[in-house]
């Protein structure tokens, strides 16, 4: 009777041991899944972020012979946390040093102050045969629109930056741009397209939303 229990015990222990041995192999199999197949797009593989994280997306689509596509998805919070860790050249503690706030004899800070206090309106409107330029403040956004008509192939650039982001950018001390504060202000904004560039062979988009996947 005792021998039967002993045999049973040995068998049970062996089975449990084998199961334990196979457990890490399962982990191994999971962690060695191959690289993504070419047929799968990034959007298909990625999962949608369920949290309220804000994501900055950059997409470049080139329609030239190479047909290059670039997709970058960065959580703003990650950038906010990582930037202060960078201490190199002009970047320290999430701030970038500029030699002086006078760039080409333009006092940037004074210019920003002036734009902030000004009512909505068009500041610059240029219409010529070569290009159209429009700089305006509209619904608390600074908008720059350039349409280049020089070539037969037109190119169009539109930049739309919330004023709060510009304020935050210039909120640091003199001769400094506060990148972290700007990112923080940006994260408080709703879904918005910040930059759009279109020409005959390239489309560039920079936008902000709550998804960790591109369209």
């Amino acid at each position, binding site marked *: 009777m005792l021998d039967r229990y002993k045999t049973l015990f040995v068998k049970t222990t062996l089975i449990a041991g084998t199961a334990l041995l196979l457990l890490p192999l399962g982990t191994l199999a999971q962690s060695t899944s191959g690289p993504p197949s070419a047929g799968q797009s990034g959007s298909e593989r990625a999962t949608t972020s369920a949290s309220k994280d804000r994501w900055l997306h950059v997409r470049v689509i080139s329609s030239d012979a190479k047909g290059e596509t670039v997709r970058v998805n960065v959580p703003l919070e990650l950038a906010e946390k990582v930037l202060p860790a960078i201490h*190199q050249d002009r970047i320290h503690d999430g701030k970038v040093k500029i030699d002086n706030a006078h760039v080409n004899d333009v006092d940037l800070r004074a210019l920003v102050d002036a734009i902030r206090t000004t009512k909505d309106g068009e500041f610059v409107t240029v219409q010529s045969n070569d290009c159209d330029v429009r700089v305006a403040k509209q619904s608390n956004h600074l908008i720059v629109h350039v349409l280049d008509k020089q070539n037969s192939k037109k190119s169009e650039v539109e930049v739309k930056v919330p004023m709060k982001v510009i304020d935050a950018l210039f909120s640091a001390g003199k001769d400094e741009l506060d990148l972290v504060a700007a990112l923080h202000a940006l994260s408080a904004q709703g879904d918005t397209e910040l930059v759009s560039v279109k020409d005959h062979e390239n489309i560039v988009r920079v936008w902000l939303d709550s998804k960790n996947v591109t369209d």
Partner: protein
Amino acid sequence: MILLAKAALTVGGTLVLAGAYTMREGVIRIDVDEYRAGGSHVHMWVPAAAVPMALHFVPDKHMRHVSHDACQAMPILHAIVKELKKYPDTEFVEVDDHDQHVRIRTQGGRLQIDVDAPDQKVHVLCPLSTIEDVAIQIEQHGPAA
């Protein structure tokens, strides 16, 4: 006979436990193939948990040297990995040329870097927790530590 079974069980059990402990964080996989004359072909699978353990056996002077060389990069790497662990599986960078593909993404708590080009293929898969452990250990040997 019973003594032999006990000994086998002890050895087997120890091996199982050691295997389970070593493999608990998966593996680090590095595949590099250079398609040219004399090109490198590196295929390496290392248990992820073994790397931070192995670092404990690296002489202090070598760790200090590494830490000194990487003193600027380590806090950045540490911050990136710490943050990446908070996010779901994501494709952070994807570049598709007609014959070149680069992907940097996280998948199941692992950082995956894939480079496919006509002249070389590089695939790296490493658990984020391992990168964090290594970054912490290297930082600990830094001048500020």
